């Protein structure tokens, strides 16, 4: 069944006794309706770092017991869960953004003529099964509100968000709004046209290419409280007051389009689809203060219509102090998973930067011991601050004594690590990319030295390394020189801030490293 012309979701009176119901601003779902929604089978779409779809699918299987389908549209996986599992879904660590699938078309036939193709999309709106998905969206909202209440206000100004672009892909296309507001001013529909890439690229703004921009690491210790949802925009959705008059929902449409046979652009599709949505639900189009974000994902002949369940990418969750090249937590998680950490493993990140990888590691694999190090005092300071933030977050729960974290940080030289030979199980790091830090020439000398030293500290036979690098040529060359110590086991091609990079899984051979008759 499809929601009819009336776009107002009924204002249900708030019921006391609903599990964890909080004071004002609750979703307005009565217990019976919530119960019913919770049992719905929701098809969830998740965006993940490209290359790590399999890893994400494994995490979903492990934590939710559901099998995933990996889409041809890279960086997306789909799985089905009962709607009541939404809290666990949000806790997945390999996922950047989530949406509920309204409908999926595996082989949609687009008309060749632009007007016809667009008209078809418009006509599609009223035929789609919106009801269940909207119920899931509503249930999801009530979860978000609870989270918001517990956490402090996020005071990110749009200006500071722009500044922080270090190339990490911000899943929320709302970043683009500030740029495109002028373009859309004339258009009364004001549906979000950006986020539509006419090339094969996961969601991300071409205008904010963080590669060029190098933050001044001295000054910009920009402190950002990244919690579940931002309060920096007033949420129109807050006002389901249940006091008679239900508010009209505000929405926007984000279209991602990839493929070379379409006769229309993503902007056009978003605009026309949005027009039909507005017509059908009588919702109000609003680019910045929206309640419902409708997703129209077109990848060749695969069309997926969804409703966003996350508003800002989950990938910044652990990092409050950014550096110029901070790695996404989801990518860090994927890398760690690749090396299959076992309890009691010693895991070292010898070039940790702001600590994205070891912090993710300590949070998710608390039965391992994590050691992080960097030679840069700024990096070490930032990493230490990020760890403190993590400790404070743990502290704020009911425990009286502060819970420690199995993670230590040191300032050291990657070529001269103060660690015993063969004592480390896993080395995992983001190797410097010539373009952002250091230079390509420096990498030429650095990479072999790193690999040797990492080989020395790593346990022969059982040890492994997972290394991310953009300088694939240099890496391959360096690797060929240390073939007696490292074997390449797997390569994952990834996209880091628009750069094509690779993650290499290496296994330590059984050959023992020479004991260094040196300072250590």
């Amino acid at each position, binding site marked *: 069944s499809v929601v009819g012309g009336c776009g107002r979701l009924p204002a249900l009176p708030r019921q006391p006794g609903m599990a964890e119901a909080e004071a004002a601003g609750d979703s307005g779902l009565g217990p019976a309706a919530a119960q019913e929604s919770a049992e719905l089978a929701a098809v969830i779409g998740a965006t993940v770092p490209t290359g790590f779809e399999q890893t994400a699918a494994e995490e979903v299987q492990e934590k939710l017991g559901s099998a995933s389908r990996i889409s041809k549209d890279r960086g997306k996986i789909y799985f089905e869960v009962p709607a009541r599992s939404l809290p666990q879904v949000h806790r997945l660590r390999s996922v950047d953004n989530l949406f509920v699938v309204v409908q999926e078309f595996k082989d949609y036939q687009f008309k060749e003529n632009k007007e016809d193709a667009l008209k078809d999309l418009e006509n599609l709106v009223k035929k789609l099964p919106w009801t269940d998905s909207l119920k899931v969206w509503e249930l999801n909202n009530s979860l978000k509100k609870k989270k918001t209440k517990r956490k402090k206000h996020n005071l990110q100004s749009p200006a500071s968000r722009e500044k922080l672009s270090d190339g990490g892909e911000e899943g929320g296309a709302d970043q683009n709004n500030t740029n495109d507001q002028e373009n859309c001013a004339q258009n009364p529909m004001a549906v979000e046209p950006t986020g539509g890439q006419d090339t094969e690229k996961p969601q991300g703004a071409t205008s904010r290419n963080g590669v060029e921009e190098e933050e001044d690491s001295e000054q910009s210790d920009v402190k950002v409280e990244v919690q579940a949802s931002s309060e920096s925009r007033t949420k129109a959705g807050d006002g389901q007051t249940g006091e008679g008059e239900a508010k009209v929902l505000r929405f926007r449409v984000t279209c991602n389009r990839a493929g070379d046979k379409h006769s229309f652009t993503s902007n056009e599709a978003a605009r026309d689809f949005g027009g039909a949505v507005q017509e059908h639900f009588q919702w109000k189009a609003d680019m910045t203060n929206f309640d419902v974000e409708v997703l129209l994902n077109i990848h060749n002949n695969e069309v997926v219509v969804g409703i966003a369940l996350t508003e800002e990418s989950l990938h910044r969750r652990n990092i409050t102090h950014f550096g110029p090249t901070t790695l996404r937590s989801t990518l860090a998680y994927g890398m760690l998973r690749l090396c299959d950490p076992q309890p009691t493993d010693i895991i070292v990140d010898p070039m940790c930067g702001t600590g994205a990888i070891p912090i993710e590691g300590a949070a998710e694999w608390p039965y391992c011991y994590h050691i992080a190090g960097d*030679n840069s005092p700024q990096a*070490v300071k930032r990493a*230490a601050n990020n760890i403190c933030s993590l400790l404070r977050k743990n502290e704020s729960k009911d425990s009286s004594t502060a819970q420690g974290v199995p993670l230590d*940080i040191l*300032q050291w*030289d990657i070529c001269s690590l*103060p660690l015993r030979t063969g004592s480390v199980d896993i080395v995992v790091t983001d190797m410097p990319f010539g373009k952002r830090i250091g230079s390509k020439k420096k990498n030429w000398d650095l990479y072999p030295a790193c690999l040797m030293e990492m080989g020395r500290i790593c346990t022969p036979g059982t040890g492994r390394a997972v290394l991310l690098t953009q300088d694939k040529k240099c890496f391959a060359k360096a690797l060929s020189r240390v073939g007696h110590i490292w074997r390449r086991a797997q390569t994952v091609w990834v996209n880091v801030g628009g750069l094509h990079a690779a993650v290499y899984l290496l296994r330590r051979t059984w050959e023992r490293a020479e004991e260094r008759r040196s*300072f250590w």
Partner: protein
Amino acid sequence: KLGHPSELPPEPVPDYEGDEEFLRRVHHVLLEVEVLEGALRCPDSGRRFPISRGVPNMLLTEDEP
């Protein structure tokens, strides 16, 4: 040498894996005590590595090998 009453023997006793009391003390020192200011000392060379705000600085100077 923490200046902290951890009562650890200078060397692990034989069969230390089975000695629960010992293991508890080691666990405490390794995982529950954090040095914020102090130093690490190399047992062979005696070289001191300062610890500041919980972070040891293990960088060697130019003239050290």
